[in-house]
């Protein structure tokens, strides 16, 4: 039997910063290399699109301009997206996407941009930009995922995520959203080197650009597995791929994060 997943890409034009598109490329290629059909539906502002057939959601980061317009459009889709996440569909949201999947984003002027409350999280604009390479330890989250799904991931989940952050918003998680991981190197959600990102059910939020998924292939595969499980109702084992280059790039980025200077503006 041939398998298929359908990714709904929220606002590919307005929300694509710092190579976030690389995440979609990674998902698409790692499906294609396994002969899993990968279909992408672009959701743009004002589009009349129903999410009934979605298996996965992706939303990248965006500039502050336009955040309000995106938020207005996203709010119209709030129920559909919440229902998807509640019923187990995976979602990946980066930076601005992560913020708008939270409760609200408070700008420097004090305006509140409303989010769609997938994550129990609030973001407040900070006064400096947090920029640099990031290494995150996510062993707590992954061990919970393994327990929860009791399935054999084709690769043992790695304990680190590596990426590049560039944000000024500071995100605080509430009790219904677990942190994705703890910062080994970098600033993280609140700029204090504490928690990074958040997760609820199979929805993930993070500040990691870089692009995130290409250098963290096991996370890409985890999202694909969750999407297949959501679509077909049972775990579908994935073929193993040759990840030599991915692992080399992951390791090199971890090394670089240790040596490269970070700065904040």
């Amino acid at each position, binding site marked *: 039997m041939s398998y298929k997943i359908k990714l709904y890409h929220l606002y590919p*034009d307005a929300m694509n910063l*710092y190579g976030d598109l690389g995440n979609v490329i990674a998902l698409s290629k790692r499906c294609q290399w396994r002969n899993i059909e990968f279909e992408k539906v672009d959701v743009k502002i004002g589009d009349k699109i129903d999410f009934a057939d979605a298996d996965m959601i992706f939303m990248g980061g965006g500039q502050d301009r336009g955040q309000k317009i995106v938020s207005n459009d996203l709010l119209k889709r709030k129920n559909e997206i919440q229902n998807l996440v509640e019923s187990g569909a995976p979602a990946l949201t980066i930076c601005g996407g992560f913020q708008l999947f939270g409760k609200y984003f408070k700008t420097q002027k004090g305006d509140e941009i409303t989010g769609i409350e997938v994550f129990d999280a609030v973001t407040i604009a900070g006064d400096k930009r947090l*920029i640099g390479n990031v290494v995150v330890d996510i062993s707590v989250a992954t061990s919970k995922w393994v327990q929860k799904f009791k399935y054999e991931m084709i690769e043992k989940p790695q304990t680190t995520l590596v990426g590049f952050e560039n944000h000024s918003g500071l995100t605080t998680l509430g009790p219904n959203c677990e942190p994705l991981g703890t910062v080994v190197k970098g600033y993280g959600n609140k700029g204090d080197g504490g928690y990074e990102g958040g997760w609820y059910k199979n929805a993930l939020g993070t500040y990691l650009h870089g692009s995130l998924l*290409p250098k963290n292939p096991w996370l890409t595969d985890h999202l694909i597995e969750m999407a297949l499980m959501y679509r077909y109702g049972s775990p579908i084992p994935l073929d193993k791929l040759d990840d030599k280059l991915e692992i*080399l790039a992951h390791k090199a980025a971890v090394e670089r994060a240790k040596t490269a200077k*970070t700065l904040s503006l």
Partner: protein
Amino acid sequence: MKILAIFIAKIILFVTRITHLGGGTTLPGLVATKIDKNVIKKISERLKYGVVIITGTNGKTTTAKILTEILTEEGFSVLTNPSGSNLARGIASSLVGAATLSGSVEADIAVFEVDEATMSEVTTQLRPKIVLVTNLFRDQLDRYGELDKTAAIIGKSLTGFSEMTTILNADDPLVSSLSDYVEGRIIYYGLEDTEISTDSTAAMDSKDCMFCGHELEYESRYLGHLGRWKCPNCRRIRTKPHIWVSEISLEPLKSSYSLKLRREELKIEMPLPGLYNIYNALAAATIATLIGVGAPAISHALRSCEAAFGRMELIEVSGKKIMMLLVKNPTGANQALAAIFSDNKAKKIGFYLNDNFADGTDISWIWDVDFEYFDLAKTKFVASGNRAEDIALRLKYAQVDKNYLHSEKDIMIATEKLAELLDEGEIGYLLPTYTAMVEVRSHFVSKDDQLCDMGKVTKHGI
């Protein structure tokens, strides 16, 4: 104080050049401004035709170089700042280097490329006659934050100078929006060619209206977010340029076009490829026209112009020829690839990715390069630089066959490998980031050639 500042700075300049300590590009200026903080202003006031400033993301260096060639052709003596030193200190160094102890300057006019972030400091001190903004793309965003913030920084630096002429790229909606900050005269330049358009959506860095946030519409899109744009919501629309280019034809190593100045229309064949270089030439011609340079000098200089330091340079490695094209961001890389593949033939390409401060420490932009847009089958790649693994991975996901993909972190070995892949007489291509380009040059370009990038006064006939 002024004399002391210039005197000491000149001594430092002399010593650093003799000893090759950093080429004397920033230290003398730093010291001179420490002694007399108005030294830049005092010297620049002595320039007969004042100061021209070129800023923006892409094309600063090449535009400044082409403009210098045009002005020199017309008989001007031109003071420039060396590329890579386009911060305030580098400009101060250029000025003190060209100044006599009494504070007069040997040049008629200064053409400075200025980093976006230092614009306000520089405009306040230099009081330029002309400022030109090339374009605004994502480049080294890790330094400045988001693109809108960069635009605001430039915008504020343009405010308060009613005597200054501001030249804006009409095709870039974000650059055009800077008109709101300007108090003096505004001149627009752009392309008027409906035949040139791309369907690649890569590097659309500013696709929403700056005023209302609605997605812009394009009658035709030239590259990235540059094109004939309008906002269907608030009805802002591209201004028709005063000086423009049409009838464009592109080839791998040259380009030809028609340049419409105020009165004359010139047919130009230029030994620089790519739409981005046509923008650079057009920008330079626009400034030259405003200064009063005649069509013959513009035409002559454009027909023989060369790209700036490392932007495009033919190097020789083990008897093979390699064309080196600097890449700094997705737009530049897409344009370089478009030029390389304009004849649709398989190539041998080195992509060298460094993430040092001068390159931009965020390398995620490689995922915004539209490799997928080009037919890469049969093209061989050499990935190198301190982030070689990342660019190799990007190429893997662009479906480059692993047998066609070599990864070698060491830039010198990688370049020799690239030369080895080339057949007799075949030209290879090399796309390095800034510090990788400098490293390639240090290995494969002779010392004599390396010295010619110093800040200097270019005189007619030299």
